[in-house]
């Protein structure tokens, strides 16, 4: 089946009505980013001394990192477990991870009071800080993701370098450089693939360690010493649903047939992963006896129940049903619920659960904060579309298998 599937650039008209709407959302977001740079964080956000972190950290960074987990879970499945049938989803997953982490880094930068000092952690180390660990891992992993993406660039441009005007004299050296890169990467890629999985496991869990130091400021429903484990397990559980969701949207958007087989196979792996996460989450609740807080009716308890029931239990049941596996739409809905659950979990951990001792005004994100978050998500989708159109990312059936001029590595 995978023999006649080959990743190719998908040339389409870039602007569609959806794309235009997304572009407007992205433009508004960028305007607010500009406002933040000119007038400061206080002018654009509702952050205060009581609530130093808002949705730029809770959603853009924490949820962004979790939802980019498709990159390392498919890398582990396709390359480390060496399941060749999954090779055609590794590229879209890699692209999502690469774009996702890029925007995580940008979001961190605009949230930093002194964004121009973002390089400080590279030379100023604090091994005790969970944030230092997250920062270093994300920086290194982002580099690894770019390296993993390089073969796609070389594949696209080797023998096709055609710079306009006076730049054309660089055509030959550039082509040589690409070929050299291609040869070097071919032999060393496994180093980066394993490193990517290790780095992901490290910072996905350390992201959970972040809020532990907040101690009693955090609602007991979420505050637990096993937060790093819960973060890692939920990241693993959300990786494949993210790939399923994306694969479906891409196929709809580009008018391709959905990869029902692969989607269903991936779906089979979601239930056990989600089950393990749920058992740890509920086990932790029973051991720490935090279920007493569920009898109170407040934002925290309601959000917790939504997160668990709609975000974990319902999709778990869906992924266990054989009928769902036959329908791409059913799988996509189930996958979306898992994504929603993990998204909500990260938001709950970083925002809803955060209850400082002295509160003058409760935090709710400002228009500016929401616009930036929405703008970045829109920008990510637009870039994904552009990349899929320019680079060989999405695999489509090939009528006749032509011998490729250059061996195509499965990355």
């Amino acid at each position: 089946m995978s023999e006649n599937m080959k990743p190719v650039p998908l040339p389409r008209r870039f602007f569609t009505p959806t794309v235009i709407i997304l572009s407007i959302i992205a433009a508004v977001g960028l305007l607010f980013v500009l406002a933040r740079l000119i007038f400061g964080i206080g002018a654009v956000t509702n952050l205060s001394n009581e609530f130093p972190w808002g949705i730029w950290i809770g959603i853009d960074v924490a949820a962004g990192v979790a939802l980019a987990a498709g990159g390392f879970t498919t890398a582990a499945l396709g390359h480390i477990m060496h399941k060749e049938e999954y090779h055609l989803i590794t590229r879209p997953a890699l692209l999502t991870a690469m774009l996702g982490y890029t925007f995580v880094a940008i979001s961190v930068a605009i949230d930093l009071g002194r964004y121009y000092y973002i390089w400080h952690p590279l030379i100023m180390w604090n091994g005790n800080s969970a944030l230092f660990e997250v920062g270093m891992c994300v920086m290194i992993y982002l580099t690894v993701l770019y390296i993993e993406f390089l073969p796609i660039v070389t594949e696209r441009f080797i023998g096709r370098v055609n710079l306009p005007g006076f730049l054309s004299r660089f055509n030959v050296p550039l082509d040589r450089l690409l070929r050299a890169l291609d040869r070097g990467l071919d032999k060393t890629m496994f180093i980066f693939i394993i490193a990517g999985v290790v780095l992901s496991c490290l910072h996905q869990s350390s992201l959970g360690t972040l809020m532990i130091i907040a101690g009693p400021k955090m609602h007991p429903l979420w505050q637990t010493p096993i937060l790093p484990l819960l973060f890692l397990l939920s990241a693993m559980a959300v990786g494949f649903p993210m790939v399923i969701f994306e694969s479906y949207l891409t196929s709809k958007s580009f008018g391709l047939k959905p990869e029902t087989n692969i989607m269903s196979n991936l779906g089979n792996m979601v239930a056990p992963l989600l089950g393990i996460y749920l058992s740890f989450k509920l086990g932790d609740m029973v051991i720490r006896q935090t279920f007493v807080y569920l009898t109170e009716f407040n934002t925290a308890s309601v959000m917790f129940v939504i997160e668990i029931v709609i975000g974990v239990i319902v999709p778990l049941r869906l992924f266990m049903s054989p009928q769902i596996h036959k329908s791409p739409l059913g799988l996509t809905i189930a996958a979306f619920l898992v994504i929603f659950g993990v998204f909500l979990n990260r938001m709950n951990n970083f925002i809803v659960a955060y209850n400082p001792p002295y509160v003058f005004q409760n935090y709710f994100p400002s228009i500016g904060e929401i616009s930036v978050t929405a703008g970045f998500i829109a920008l990510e989708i637009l870039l994904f579309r552009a990349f899929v159109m320019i680079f060989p990312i999405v695999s489509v059936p090939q009528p006749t298998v032509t011998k490729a001029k250059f061996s195509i590595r499965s990355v």
Partner: protein
Amino acid sequence: MLNESRRKFLKTSALIGAGITGLSTKTVKAGPKYVLDENRMGVLVDTTVCIGCRKCEWACKTAHHLPTPPLESYDDRSVFEKMRRPDAHALTVVNEYEPKETEQFLINVKVQCMHCDRPACVSACIVGAFSKEENGSVIWDGDKCIGCRYCMVACPFQIPSFEFEKAWHPEIKKCDFCFTRTKEGKLPACVEICPMEVLTYGTRKSLIERAHQKISLYPERYINHVFGEFEVGGTSWLYLASKDFSELQFPKLGTNPAPGVSEAIQHGIFAYFVPPVALYALLGGVMWINKKKAESNKNKEVHHE
């Protein structure tokens, strides 16, 4: 300072060296030991004496070159109507609370950084911009700070504040225990100005002794609790009060140091890079085995054909 830099040196060299040489898991779990000076200083705040003149607020602003209203304006007691918190414009504030039934004077409580013995901000800071100094003060290094505000998330007393209104070079502001003044041999500005001798500056050890002495001498005046003696592993600033500290809006905290759990997990996951390296090796092994398997399968297929 010597202790501090030696600790940093030991920690860094241990982190680098141990990854290669490999250490037993027992030493790894303990993490780097926090070295505290025996004679670190502190302040004992006797809230039963404070009259709420707020001269400490004025002195603090003056000493830290913050915009300071004239001293006369501090006679205005209407500010006590609302609870206030230290922020970027005032590193210390005084609040007022209802007295015990048997008393007639209102209770005034000065709030500022507690200068923890095991500070969460020092542990949390991504670039190590905070440090616990030999004299007990917890100070912030403006050259390192990147403005991530994780210190504010971490602080159990909700003390560090951030200049949200500044677009360029915002600072984290908090009481620095008058680090520059005390280095010159002067008293902290608030301690120096206090007309009621609410604030006593001395070594933390002697202050704890003095606090317990006061409690045993006047058991009807004080409750038997020195806030800060054990809270979050002990703080340099210590409080005496006539009624329960929770009624004076002190946070309810345990005796475990605030960064304890987080550091234990952090060093557990890392343990001098042993777990990540082991995971790397394991995944590499799995990858190699699976690749061999796939290749031999392919060869078999070729044979069948």
